[in-house]
């Protein structure tokens, strides 16, 4: 018998502990992946913008491979294929690793564009002041280019958060997996989907609001 009731509050309060665990796992995977993607983006983006041989070409290949294959296939490759090569990873590691590799590729493009947007004159001014190549990057290109890249990189982090839901495919108990599994048992499908929708929209909308806030706060003072 299908029960035609809708009681969101009962669903949430009865499954509060599990749902909170799921949300926590989503946030944990997202945090690990975002920190990793930031690091990958900064280093590889800098390598690309400065045309550092070998690293720059390898980064281009990495970016094209990630951009042109579905992320779900990437997750399956890490989860099902690596064990065959003798590399056993637990679900949590697969989860953050997969979205980090994905986000890192997009982020290195964000930062490459940001660093390349820094005017030559600024860099030359740094060199003229006696800065070496690395300290010119650290003191001039990074603060200016990093700000230019910030909005697009936050957009990538938003996608990272959304993509953690794909861990349903490997059964890792993040929010989506948790909510759908509960609803499979209790048939409270509508309630489970409402919770999923509301939580993800709250996460995504607050992150995009932060872009707008940061954009006005960190906007470069009009030069030229």
């Amino acid at each position, binding site marked *: 018998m299908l029960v035609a009731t809708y009681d969101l509050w009962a669903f949430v309060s009865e499954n509060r502990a599990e749902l909170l665990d799921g949300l926590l796992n989503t946030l944990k995977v997202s945090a690990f992946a975002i920190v990793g993607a930031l690091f990958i983006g900064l280093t590889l983006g800098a390598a690309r913008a400065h045309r550092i041989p070998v690293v720059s070409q390898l980064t281009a290949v990495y970016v094209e491979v990630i*951009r042109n*294959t579905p992320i779900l*296939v990437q997750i*399956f*490759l890490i989860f099902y294929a690596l064990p*065959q090569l003798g590399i056993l990873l637990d679900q949590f590691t697969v989860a953050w690793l997969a979205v980090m590799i994905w986000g890192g590729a997009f982020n290195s493009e964000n930062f490459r564009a940001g660093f390349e947007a820094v005017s030559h004159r600024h860099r030359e001014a740094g060199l003229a002041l006696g800065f070496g190549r690395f300290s010119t990057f650290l003191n001039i290109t990074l603060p200016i280019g990093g700000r230019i890249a910030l909005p697009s990189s936050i957009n990538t982090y938003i996608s990272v958060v959304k993509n953690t*839901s*794909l861990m349903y495919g490997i059964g890792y108990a993040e929010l989506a997996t948790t909510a759908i599994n509960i609803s499979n048992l209790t048939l409270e499908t509508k309630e489970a*989907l409402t919770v*999923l929708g509301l939580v993800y929209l709250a996460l995504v909308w607050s992150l995009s609001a932060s872009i707008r806030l940061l954009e006005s706060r960190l906007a470069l003072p009009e030069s030229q």
Partner: protein
Amino acid sequence: MPDWVEPVARYILEEGLPGTLRVSAIAVTGSALIGVVFGTLLTIRFLPLRGLIRFYIEVFRGLPILVTVFIVYLGLPSISPQLEFTPLTSASIALVLWGSAQVAEATRGAVQSIPRGQHEAASALGFGWVGRHSSVILPQALRRLLPPFVSLLVNIIQNSTLAQVIGGLEILEAGERQSERLTASPPIGIGEIHAAEIFAGVAVLFFLISFPLTRLAATIEKRLI
């Protein structure tokens, strides 16, 4: 080449590929049609309509596509049994909801980028709102929409793999079924694990489809500027 490869490749190309292509074709067509209409309507200064379309865009761009897939596949039938769809159809509908939101946003920008004078000239020639947009504004805006359309196509092809999660037979699901089958003992399988080769093959197949399209998008973009 080992014996197991040929039937696996055959299954992925003959059973999986058509599923991916069907979902992608429906999703791209639906997204383009709905998205262009919504995006054009978004430029009208009529607040309630604008608010509704804005909400639609923000919701379906904000939700993870997987959640939209679940809403269509599990949520709609729980409201009415008539709204029950097959996995592939559900994935197509979910991708239309997401894709049309993307297209609407891009269309709004493209329509607003057409100079005011074009609207005025069309009005002066006696075109009403519909005629003005369908004969003068949209043909120009659509040209600017070409690069985002190609990127959308790539995204949709890749996201059609989400049908796998609900058991829809597309490329990834075909690969997953074959990789599972091979682990079974003969005569069904061969009792071996070949997940790495199969999923790598699936990745290569997607790359071969997507890469030329992303190059094309980049070329069109350069030409238009």
